[in-house]
């Protein structure tokens, strides 16, 4: 089996990007990642895309291939919410490992802030079950709030501990000139921001941003003469337990347990081996629940660890070193891809001003739905 490696990565600016479209963001990110890998469009034989809210289409990969003038030997688009970016990396790795492709471009992007004119919250609420959730005014934050309330009641997590996660993400964003939000805030600021759905305040919720990001996944033997240090895909895994929160088998245990165990197991590693983690943080509770479910902390300990600074750059487990969805930016499927790109930059030693010293192993994790669908990717510096 051929080994899969990440040979290129790129992210556009994030924030409110005047004049950006879904396809312009795809193009900048995709061509940027290819340039980073030193590859021409004609050398790409695989193309994987996600989905768009602003330019929805049944066949987004074909739309992008046509737009940019690419004629890949394999193309597919996957729509699995926030987990999509990690899933596409896993799929790209499988394609090159199986020998179907040599260079797969994985590209995501959406102008979700400027292109939806404030309708993003309503549009996202429509992923709730039409008959059994939507009639009750359930929103995505409300669903995660149900998780948070249960988690607090079972494990003694506090609102201040959740706020400490948001503060850490913002501190990382302050170090990152590209981040969407860079104004520092405190635990008190989070606690005093208005409630969206108790116990989640405004600053417990992720941003809505325009942006795009892409990576190139190549077969190791095709990556010999590339410009940048190659990053190995050491292990990947998924876990799926439900779609709708009303049908979740548990409000405290999720598919990330299996996805991380599989990804780490395939890499021959354990959680304590990992130097830096980039984990989906749609809400503060998302990150906390995943850190514990995946085995990075014992039950009920991630909140206290966040409050003690363990998730900071320089802490015991640097987490979301770019600022995460909470402060770097969230552009639909690209939100999860920002985590992948950041892991690549950390492992290459390119994370100026926010570099985790000596980072050799990273775990990236995405989740889609309401902690419904999970994918973990373990990356390592070759």
């Amino acid at each position, binding site marked *: 089996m051929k080994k899969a490696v990440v040979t290129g990565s790129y992210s556009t600016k994030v924030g409110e990007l005047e004049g950006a479209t879904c396809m312009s963001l795809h193009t900048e990110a995709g061509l940027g990642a290819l340039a980073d890998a030193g590859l021409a469009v004609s050398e790409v034989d695989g193309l994987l895309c996600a989905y768009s809210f602003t330019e929805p289409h049944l066949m987004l990969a074909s739309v992008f291939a046509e737009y940019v003038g690419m004629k890949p030997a394999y193309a597919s688009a996957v729509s699995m919410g926030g987990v999509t970016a990690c899933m596409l990396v896993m799929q790209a790795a499988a394609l090159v490992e199986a020998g179907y492709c040599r260079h797969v471009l994985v590209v995501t992007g959406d102008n979700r802030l400027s292109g939806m004119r404030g309708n993003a*919250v*309503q549009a996202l*609420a*429509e992923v709730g*079950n*039409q*008959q*059994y*959730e*939507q*009639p*009750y*005014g*359930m*929103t995505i*934050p*409300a669903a995660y*709030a*149900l*998780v*948070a*309330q*249960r988690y607090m*009641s079972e494990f003694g997590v506090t609102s201040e501990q959740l706020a400490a996660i948001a503060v850490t993400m913002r501190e990382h964003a302050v170090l990152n000139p590209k981040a969407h939000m860079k104004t520092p805030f405190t635990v008190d600021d989070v606690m005093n921001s*208005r*409630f*969206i*759905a*108790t*116990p*989640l305040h405004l600053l417990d919720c992720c941003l809505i941003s325009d942006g795009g990001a892409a990576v190139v996944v190549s077969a190791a033997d095709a990556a010999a003469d590339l410009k940048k240090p190659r990053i190995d895909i050491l292990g990947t895994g998924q876990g799926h337990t439900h779609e709708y*929160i*009303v*049908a979740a088998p548990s*409000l405290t245990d999720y598919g990330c347990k299996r996805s991380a165990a599989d990804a780490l197991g395939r890499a021959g590693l354990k959680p304590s081996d990992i130097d830096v983690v980039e984990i989906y943080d749609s809400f503060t509770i998302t990150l906390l629940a995943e850190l514990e479910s995946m085995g990075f902390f014992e039950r009920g300990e991630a909140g206290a660890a966040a409050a003690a600074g363990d998730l900071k750059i320089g802490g015991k487990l640097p987490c979301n070193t770019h600022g995460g969805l909470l402060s770097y930016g969230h552009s639909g499927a690209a939100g999860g891809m920002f985590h992948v790109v950041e892991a690549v930059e950390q492992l290459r030693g390119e994370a100026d001003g926010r570099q985790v010293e000596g980072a050799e192993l990273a775990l990236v994790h995405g989740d889609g739905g309401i902690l419904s669908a999970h994918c973990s990717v373990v990356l390592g510096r070759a």
Partner: protein
Amino acid sequence: MEKPVPRPNADSAPFWEGCAAHEFRFQRCNSCGKPQFYSRAVCAHCQATDLSWEVAAGEGTVHSVTTVHRGPSVAFKEDSPYQVALVDMDEGFRFMANVRGGEAEIGTPVRVIYEKRGDQTIPQVEIRG
């Protein structure tokens, strides 16, 4: 803008017809004996397709609850803030509802009540003393 009205289909028609008659119907699998919500063509526990309808007593306990300050649309503005709860029914299944006539917390005992919503009737819960 109106609040969402559930659109019954072949899987769910008996449930919504029950709600119209103020009867909380749920499925039980004739193969493994487990209850399930929401209703569907297959048992999600054992994949058997032989399912029976039963009627719940209408009492349960709040498994989790949040107070929503920003609803999904202007239709929910007049209710805001409002509570959304996951309720564990005594028969052993879970469903979602708004809490009416008081504030619930985790563990609060509740009973099912019914509300008109467009041309349908939806189950909600109120606190039972």
